[in-house]
């Protein structure tokens, strides 16, 4: 697709013009005539930090307080609750489904008096800034389809990821950084973490430039960012000048605007080589900030370090910042492993909210903390005095949101006494997506891309904005 030509014939699309000049994260160039308007209304959130908890954290040990379960501990889950719900092949052969109460205590926090598990003490301090949704639900019962639904709007591979849609719809505010950045951290759980999939930050059928760019903690932070050993910056500058002059001569001969675009991309690459190291260099962060995020923050690749980087990315105008923290798949040995996972994320998640707030960035940054589904109230494997496990559970799970456009200090939705079924205000994955786009100023029904004859959108044919979550 010829980049500049598109700019030429899409002159009515004011918003795209600016980004066409720069290319990186430039919006929606193919099928533009079919793509619809973006930013349908003034956005509350200019950017998103999506803290994805891969593997699916248990709601029962975090945000969904069920004190009544202590009495029912070890008793069989009533059929009236299970209602023939399909379970995964991992527990479908189990002879019994005994209720496992949370081993962990809950207490009330904040002005709202919200119940939060003792595994998340730092969350207690931000509870009045966030909106907890206890009534998330999905249809998928396995990791691959569930995480794919959360991140691309369908259970099967093939669609663009949330961040790619955002990049396509909004372009980039920063000329020197990608619009969509991905950060991955490994959890402290002892169990093998579930896989992450390139498609989760892939472009699907959108132009490949909308693919998320991984910011890595080992090697080059962005692939191939560093000059080769032995090549100094002045040397590289000279080389780029040489490439530029020769490309200019070619452009004079052929008149192909693509050549000019390439010259611009090489210049931007050169600038990225300074702007990315500057971004990832946290050595100048003051001690009180480092303390706020916790001691992990100085360990590259940790969740805490990624939260700190997320703030720095937000400050620099990166539009979609996607974190993945791995290791939440507690089929067994749950008490020990979930404690470790919660330690990984508690302080840093809380610090990020506080840090954004003190910098005035919370109001226009949307934060989402969620996994791909919930965990079962019944025990998977052996229920002992000290340990238990929980299988996948699609019918309810907890998530929280904060910042741009979100009503702080509320709890939305309610599950039954077993945290099995939703009894009030269910929020489907599609509704979450619609609501997130809404906060970004986008009508989820209007952000579309025509592919194989059909106008596709992130929320497919579903989704409704959940008004009570909005400020």
């Amino acid at each position, binding site marked *: *697709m010829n980049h500049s*030509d598109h700019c*030429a*014939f899409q002159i009515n699309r004011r918003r795209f013009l600016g980004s066409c000049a720069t*290319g990186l994260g430039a919006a929606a160039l193919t099928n533009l*005539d079919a793509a*619809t308007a973006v930013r349908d209304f003034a956005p509350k959130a200019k950017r998103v930090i999506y803290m994805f908890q891969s593997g699916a954290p248990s709601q029962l040990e975090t945000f969904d307080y069920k004190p009544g379960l202590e009495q029912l501990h070890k008793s069989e889950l009533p059929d009236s609750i299970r209602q023939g719900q*399909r379970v995964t*092949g*991992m*527990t479908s052969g189990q002879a019994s489904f005994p209720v496992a109460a949370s081993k962990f205590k809950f207490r009330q926090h904040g002005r709202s008096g919200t119940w939060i598990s003792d595994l998340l003490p730092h969350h207690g301090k931000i509870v009045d800034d966030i909106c907890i949704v206890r009534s998330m639900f999905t249809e998928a019962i*396995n*990791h*691959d389809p569930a995480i794919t639904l959360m991140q691309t709007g369908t259970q*099967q*591979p093939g669609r663009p990821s949330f961040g790619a849609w955002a990049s396509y719809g909004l372009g980039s505010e920063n000329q020197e950084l*990608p619009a969509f950045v991905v950060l*991955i951290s*490994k959890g402290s759980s002892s169990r*093998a973490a*579930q*896989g*992450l*999939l*390139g498609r989760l930050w*892939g472009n699907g059928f959108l*132009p*490949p*430039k909308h693919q998320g760019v991984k910011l890595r903690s080992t*090697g080059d932070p962005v*692939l*191939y*960012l560093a*000059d*080769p*050993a*032995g*090549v*100094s910056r002045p040397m590289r500058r*000279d*080389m780029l000048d040489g*490439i530029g*002059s*020769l*490309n200019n*001569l070619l452009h004079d*001969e*052929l008149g*192909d605007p*693509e050549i000019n675009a390439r010259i611009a*991309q*090489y210049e*931007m690459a050169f600038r*990225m*080589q300074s702007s990315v190291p500057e971004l990832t260099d946290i050595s100048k962060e003051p001690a009180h900030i480092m303390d706020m995020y916790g001691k992990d923050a100085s360990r590259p690749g940790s969740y805490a370090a990624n939260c700190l980087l997320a703030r720095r990315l937000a400050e620099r105008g990166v539009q979609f910042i996607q974190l993945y923290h791995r290791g939440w798949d507690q089929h067994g040995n749950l008490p020990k492993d979930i404690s470790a996972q919660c330690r990984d994320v508690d302080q840093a998640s809380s610090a990020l909210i506080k840090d954004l707030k003190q910098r005035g960035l919370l109001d226009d940054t949307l934060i989402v903390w969620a996994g791909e589904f919930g965990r079962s109230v019944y025990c998977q494997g052996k229920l002992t005095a000290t340990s238990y496990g929980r299988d996948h559970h699609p019918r309810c799970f907890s998530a929280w949101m904060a910042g741009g456009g979100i009503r702080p200090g509320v709890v939305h939705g309610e599950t039954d006494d077993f945290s099995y079924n939703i009894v009030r205000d269910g929020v489907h994955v599609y509704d979450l997506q619609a609501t997130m786009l809404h906060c970004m100023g986008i009508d989820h*029904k209007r952000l*579309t891309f025509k592919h*194989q*004859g*059909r106008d596709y959108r992130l929320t497919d044919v579903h989704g409704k904005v959940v008004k009570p979550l909005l400020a």
Partner: protein
Amino acid sequence: MIERLLLFSFTSVVGINLAAEKEVDFNQHIRPILSGKCFACHGPDEKERKAKLRLDMRESAIADHGGIRAIVPGKPAQSELISRINHSDPEERMPPEDSEHQLTATERSLLEAWIKAGAEYQAHWAFVSPSRAPLPGVSNAEWPGNAIDHFILARLDREGLKPSPPASRERLLRRLTFDLTGLPPTVTEMDAFLADTSARAVEQVFDSLLERRAYGEHMAVNWLDAARYADSNGYNNDPPRYNWRWRDWAIEAFNRNLPFDQFLTEQLAGDLLPGATVEQQLATGFNRNHSVTTEGGVIDEEYRLEYVADRVNTTATVFMGLSMRCARCHDHKFDPILQKEYYAFSAFFNQVPEKGSHRGLVGNPTPVIRAPTKAQRAAIEKQTTTLQALASSMEERRLLADSAIPAWQRRLSDDQAGDARIPAEGLLHHCSLDDGDVSGNPQWVPGKVGNALKLDGKTHVVLPAELTLKRDQTFSYGGWVNPGAARPMNILSRMNSGNHSRGFDLTFERGPVSVHLIHQWPGNGLKVQTKAAIKLNQWTHVFATYDGSSKASGVAIYFNGVKQPLDIEKDNLSASIVADVEFRIGSRTNSIPFVGMLDDVRLYGSVLPQSQVALLVGNDLRDELLAIPTAQRSEAQHKQLRDIYLAEEDADFTRLAVLQRDQQAALKKVQKAVPTAMIMKDQEKMRSTFILARGEYDKPGEKVEAATPAAFGVLPAGAPRNRLGLARWLTNPRHPLTARVAVNRLWYQMFGTGIVETQEDFGSQGSWPSHPQLLDWLAVEYIESGWDSKAMIKLISMSATYQQSPRSTPALRSVDPRNRLLARGPRSRLSAEMIRDHALAVSGFLTNQVGGPSVRPYQPAGLWTEVSVGGGTVHGGGRYIQQHGKDLYRRGIYTWWKRTCPPPALNTFDAPDREFCTVRRTPTNTPLQALVMLNDPTFVEAARGLAQRLLREAGTTVDARAAFAFRLATSRSPRPRELAILSAQYAKQHQRFEANKSAADQLLAIGESDPTAGLDTVELAAWTTVASIILNLDEAISR
């Protein structure tokens, strides 16, 4: 079929200019409006239809609906449609206020003009068989080189445009060489071509390029995207898969110019062709290249149906340019495909003997075949010939034996007790079951030979772990059996029920006795079962033998020494049966324990002949046979006796038998190395196919039979109702889509954009062809040429259109920015693979090896582990182990493709992840690409290689050296200004490295090839930076 002349200017293709057009064309103007804005509620989908009005069919649109007619032909004022689209009341106006698809003023006037002109409908152009239009007249009869040019020039004439002059010969050679082989021309080739001024020079170069094996490699890249080929199984765990023999097939198919109709047929249904060869079965891997899940706990049927849906989607997209996906959940909203028809179509692909869940699997999911490479096939043939020679020598010994038997009989005066001759040779294990340590509650009771073991269902004997039986070994086992219950009970086994029942066994099946040899049940294993039953509570000697052939025919079962007729229930064993569990008598790992008595169990490492089995039973066959007078022995008895004689008396025969065994072992070794390939197969008992409500696996509705969507015609008369019939239907010359889509793909590969830009969608929502009559002409030409792809590519390459200069002017760009009219030659960035191959080729590193397993060249550390399950510690192959030597320098098509983490440099240059079918890559231009070209070790090393070459091959002056490298990378000589820039760069960088020699050493140390090759390091480093500049030029990554 498109008779109407297109009077629009080019801009009308993207934005309608009503003033320029007197006549409204239904297909070009009206269908896109109705389809995009009205059909969702007034189209083919009955469930969504509002007001019972459908606008996709004229008779319904003009019908009287209770006094109201949506369309009154010729009378817009009386047409409800017009009044509703212009209605002042938003409640009444169409489309409804909340619709995302509102009409523009232009569209409203177009609809009005169309109704006024009579509201004629046309069938969608792509759904009517193509026919050849006469070549249009052109303004300049000299210009056209062939038919293509008539169509192109006629269109340019209408637009008042002129074609461009021919491209320079340098550029033409580069374009041709890249378009046909994916590689740049060499210096020798450039020199030869420039020196050859004959009229046939271009054609000769063309013909020689088409004969290169690089042609097939280049053509296959696109095909691998379409076929979603990858080296991993996809989904969450994404373990490795080894299906590269299919890729070999594809490369080879392009190289031997397999006619496209056969190319299609073999890939869709090669297994169903009469006498299908291995190669033809291999081809069907096309529809097995999809992902399969190995995630624990998934629901089997849900995923199996995903694979079926993937095959439907891929087949429809690749061969018909249609998306059928919409119709999985409901009737298609735009194209004539009902939901019922979708499922009828899916029935063709619903017959594979497979499961949805491949939990824990690493490697190729079944069904598979063994697909030897050429070298392996030759070795196998050689061994087979040797074995045949041995067999005939042994046959000679048999003939001699016939005459020796009478004398032998006379010699045998004394008989020996049967027991003494119970075979000891080859006895691997003997379990007398007289006493000993047995887990459970053993009871020792008098048996057939001494004591017997009485089992209560909680008792079993564990045999030594080192007793491993392999499928390529001969073996025999069995003993005395006295079943005490009429249910399935295991006599002996080493079988892992937790791993798809891998292993072997001998099992009492409520009467009959079975043997299983299993790699992965049910896709890869064999099972035979006796027709006869043994009696409950009674002793029977049950013994099985196996000849190491992996075939059901190689298994025999004896009851009391008598060979039993068998039913073959499964016969597709092709991989290991070695199971890492206990070898037990009396129980499978965790199931069907034996209740009753067992005695004297023996295990041999050879195939015991019947005579020896009989000895175990206590019948001395030899004496029995000898007792029968010669004339009264049956043929079978004679043979049995002869075998006994040969074994006991003929040393030559025994020596030959040993040789035979060794040769067979050697053969098996070769055979063992033979890779497998995933294939399509229809299971014997056909699965029923159902309409699934909303596409959900657990909501089956009406049952459907395999059929094609009615709008595109039914299966040809006499065609089987299976994939082969489907292939015949697709390759029927009257099929409206197959040839059009195929030639459009070739056009796309040569010009960078198809005549129909939406290569993936020829349906009513697809883009309008830039040259409809040309597309149809080419489609008919293709069919009539016998679907000759090389001929089609030649036709395109030899056209004046293709050979034009790519130079454009501001004026031309403003009329036709994307070069859809082709008033200039094509120019586009190289594909991801070509960029890699180009750098390797000009650096001299490229490994010339066609085909074979995928390779793992340089890749930044940790890319796989940061996303793999458990950080790459589980599900095999989660860590990227880089290879070395020549494997670092293979063409991009051979790079290992992990779906959840595709090769990063290729991915940066727009290669897809191959999780699903992709028929068109979208080229982009990003800074990340610059970083790859400048900093990826592959390209840094290539720059050094190019520098080494210029120092060795290009004389001694700076200018000569710079010119050499520039020419290699751009296929033309530099102009003085260009040379000046390069020389200045060299001087400057040389100075820098002179001042910092260790920097030079560091730069040269990148990559695993010899860093300096004996050259001066400062000079080499300086040239490496200049070579890097050259490789990064827009011209070096364009064609």
